[in-house]
């Protein structure tokens, strides 16, 4: 019986595993291998031990990239989760128009990253951008969003939230719809107000969804690249230079595959660490 199940399991898994090994696992192992080599794509790779890791950790730009990416994760993680939940709560109500609003909020998800970057790069322009135009109508002085190193990362965070908070919203929305109505009704009868119902019923039941959303948000945060690359090219004054941009340019502009792969392995370890810590934390709560 046991071995029968094992056989069945692997039969079901085999098509995926074949593709996974050929097109994900082998390239991944190759990338990890390359992180110990000197290779410019055109020549033959040469084993150099940990030199690439020494090189990237001796490169101030890489350390800047780690710091900036962490800042980005810090700026986006909480708003992405809280706003995702808030939008889901708002649009979970039995009101006319929620389906429409949901669609509007979801639309940005299907926009290509290059478009997102160009569009928001313009919206955030100090002189011609819509953001400043409407801010000045309520009396706020124009901000040089993408040209001031203090504002560039927040601008990037806002863009990213606009673009991707909808996936979090959808997951929360689904989870909210699973919470049984009777629980709420019973609580209401017991005299619980909306806030108490939220804290004592909704939140605890949302924990699994919360865990998934938080993990995805943090992993995607660490892997941010496209919008930063298109909007600011990592500037001004290196304020938005992130890890994947470092990897991309090291690999495809300098053609130094070794250090690029090493930076990729470091990124893998960071996200793994964060994911494990988050799982532990979520279990503890």
């Amino acid at each position, binding site marked *: 019986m046991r071995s029968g199940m094992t056989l069945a399991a692997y039969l079901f898994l085999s098509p995926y595993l074949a593709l996974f090994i050929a097109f994900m696992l082998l390239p991944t192992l190759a990338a990890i291998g390359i992180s110990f080599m000197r290779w410019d794509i055109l020549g033959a790779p040469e084993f150099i031990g940990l030199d690439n890791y020494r090189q990237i950790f001796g490169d101030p730009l890489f350390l800047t990239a780690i710091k900036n990416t962490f800042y980005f994760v810090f700026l986006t993680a909480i708003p992405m989760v809280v706003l995702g939940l808030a939008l889901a709560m708002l649009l979970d109500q039995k*009101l006319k128009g929620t389906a429409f609003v949901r669609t509007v909020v979801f639309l940005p998800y299907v926009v290509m990253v290059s478009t997102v970057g160009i569009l928001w790069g313009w919206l955030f322009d100090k002189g011609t951008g819509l953001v400043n135009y409407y801010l000045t109508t309520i009396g706020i002085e124009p901000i040089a969003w993408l040209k001031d190193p203090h504002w560039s990362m927040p601008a990037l965070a806002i863009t990213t939230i606009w673009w991707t908070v909808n996936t979090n919203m959808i997951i929360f929305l*689904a*989870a909210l719809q699973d919470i049984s109505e009777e629980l709420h009704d019973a609580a209401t009868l017991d005299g619980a107000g909306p806030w108490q119902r939220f804290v004592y019923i909704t939140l605890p039941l949302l924990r699994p969804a919360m865990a998934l959303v938080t993990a995805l948000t943090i992993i995607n945060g660490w892997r941010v690249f496209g919008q930063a690359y298109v909007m600011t090219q990592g500037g001004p004054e290196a304020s938005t230079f992130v890890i994947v941009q470092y990897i991309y340019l090291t690999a495809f502009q300098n053609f130094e595959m070794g250090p690029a792969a090493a930076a990729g392995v470091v990124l893998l370890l960071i996200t793994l660490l964060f994911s494990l810590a988050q799982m532990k934390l979520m279990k503890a709560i």
Partner: protein
Amino acid sequence: MQDQRSNRAGKSLGGRTLAYVLMIVVTALWGAPILWMLVTSIKPESEIYAYPPTWIPDAPTLEAYGALFQRFPMLTWFRNSAVVGILTTALTLAVDALAAYPLARMQFPGRRVIMGVIFATFLLPYELLFVPLFLGLNSYGLVDSIFSLTVPASANAFGVFLLTQFFQAVPRELEDAAIMDGCGRFGFFWRILLPLTKPGLATVAIFTFVASWNNFFWPLIATNSDETRTLPVGLATLVGGAGMSMKQSVLMASAVVATLPTALFFLALQRHFVRGIAATGIKG
């Protein structure tokens, strides 16, 4: 959505008013950039930088769209993207569903290891995989083919994760009963599990299709001519880059054209999409 039962925040008039005000604010914040994209695409180049900004063009024109469709093999790129998107989605659904079933519902040696390895590859930036992948495929003569654009992308881990979640929610008793009836594991998978989790499959379909449709860097590396290009790769060459003057209207028109199919795909499946995740319980 029919199955939305609650109006938790606002039974009172005040609550409802507040909800509507918030909904208008949300619609404005999320809709305005998209609308701006649309409006800019039909403005003549001389109106684009009107200040204060105008939401209704004085002399709307479809010139930008004309430039796209008359001068570029847009239909070829569209077709390539559609073929690649549909094939990738179909293949992903097939292999991911097959793989998610045992991972979600069977106990067997190696399960945890497989889950762990799949998760770990999910964390490595894909940019790094492209060179080994390209050289590997190239040595088998598979580059610049439909194969290189669809099959490698189907090994994505995300679909497996998501479907595993969906499959776990189907009650144990159903499976036991089906197998008792002599349905067999594949019979249960095909005739009971898949129909029950149709919404889940729709969810994965949307994620996969959107990802495939918008994918840029791999198709760039893997294709060599206008005839085999997908839409994002083609569009990138016509909007103008560094050191090239760039027309905002053409840029935005190309964005509208590229966004439309995925937006429609989403609209068509969105009912399933929301219910999809709901039906399974991310609740685990």
